[in-house]
């Protein structure tokens, strides 16, 4: 588990007023797609817990991050960084057609997948009803309602779903109980992770086919079929 110092170098509000923060930090601290980094401003108790940061886009000396909660940081704020933590997305080597599904409050956590798979031969499609930032032209966008009809198109699907909305997922995908997707799918489950794996406190527990799993250390990315949903 890495432990580093970082610095907020820029803050921007994306479409939908979702905050993104540019963090200057060592390369080894940058989380891969779906992983998170725990960040704390030790001089400020406004955030009494560490803030999970997900990568949006890497740059030479750091990365653009999307915080899980609003933060009171300003450019120049020094951050204590622990991580990267958890399991991220693991894309198949022979990926042709990538389907992305965003049910959370932002599409940002899925953006590293777009950069990673820009070479996907068959294309990339994002299904969401969220307001969108500027996105690469190679990415096609469709509303969630069209997902049922397009369900056979991808050969891999990456989803971003709040734990509280996992119960809706079957309806969103148009799948009846007992059926699954005909290709691999991984889901980034978002939920508060207060202990970030330090305590196995259970606040982020999610039911799986093999008992309870913790989003903070077993996830936050899971094989969709390994979860009960």
């Amino acid at each position, binding site marked *: *588990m890495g432990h580093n110092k970082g610095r907020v170098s820029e803050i921007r509000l994306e479409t939908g007023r979702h905050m993104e923060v540019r963090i200057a930090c060592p390369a080894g601290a940058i989380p891969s797609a779906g992983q998170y980094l725990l960040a*704390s401003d030790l001089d400020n108790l406004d955030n*009494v817990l560490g803030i999970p940061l997900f990568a949006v886009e890497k740059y030479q000396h750091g990365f653009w991050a999307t915080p899980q909660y609003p933060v009171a940081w300003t450019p120049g704020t020094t951050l204590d960084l*622990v991580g990267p933590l958890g399991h991220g997305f693991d894309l198949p080597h022979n990926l042709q057609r990538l389907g992305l599904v965003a049910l959370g409050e932002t599409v940002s956590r899925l953006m590293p997948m777009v950069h990673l798979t820009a070479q996907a031969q068959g294309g990339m499609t994002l299904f969401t009803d969220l307001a969108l930032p500027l996105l690469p032209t190679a990415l096609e966008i469709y509303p969630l309602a069209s997902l049922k009809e397009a369900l056979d198109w991808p050969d891999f699907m990456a989803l971003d779903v709040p734990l509280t909305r996992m119960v809706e997922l079957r309806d969103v995908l148009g799948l009846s109980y007992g059926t699954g997707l005909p290709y691999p799918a991984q889901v980034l489950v978002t*939920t508060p992770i207060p202990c970030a794996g*330090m305590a196995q406190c*259970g606040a982020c527990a999610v039911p799986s086919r093999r008992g309870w799993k913790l989003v903070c250390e077993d996830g936050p990315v899971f094989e969709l079929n390994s979860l009960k949903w």
Partner: protein
Amino acid sequence: MAKHDLAFDPPIMNAAGSLGFFPDLHGPIDWGTLGAFVTNPVSLTPRTPARGSRFQAYPGGFLLHTGYPNPGMSQVLRRHAGHWRGSPLPVIVHLLGQGIEEVAKMARRLETVEGVSGLEVGVVSDANAEMVVALTLAASGELPVIMRLPMERSVELAAAAIQAGAVAVSLAPPRGIIPAKDGELVQGRLYGPAILPLALRMVQLLTQLGIPTIGAGGIYTPEHKKAMLTAGALAVQLDGLLWRAAGYTSLM
């Protein structure tokens, strides 16, 4: 730490439920800065996580309602007793005080486990003094026993615990209710700097009564720790601060 010896050096430890079941030597905590390690709460049989909303933030803190999930005493011993044996600091096993027989069974079993230096028994929030006495007696044996009392009722219950043989009392997080965004009223334990004033008052009242007290609740800065020791605590327990990871070291 021998029986009845509560010389924590330094006088600081984690609270039950804040750092898992064993001191993870590969994690970010500098264990040399703690005087003891307290395990996550352990029950005789497995407990699953609570259903429904388990976390709510509020200004100055947060509420947790986790159900104290754990795999049960047998699995905890199988997975973690080896770590306790090799721990660089004294290990105090926290027992969920759900029932007198259950606590007695777990305590007797732990007396034979190498590396266990003491027991902390968590008292349920609606316990009365008779229950506290019974739980203390059930836990008492070869290991020193700390009774973790509901913070709001600690003054009422502490004397019973000490008279029954506990070497000290510690303070469980106070319970509260927070309305969720959907209007649901979520109950649980309260953490964060916002509860420090309540915790300090309880520590002061307890120590004025001559009760050996391990202070806990809302300690997030060196000043908070100092205030707790000044109020008479013989040691302090940290909780949410440790989840800010390296932030903990700033206390030293």
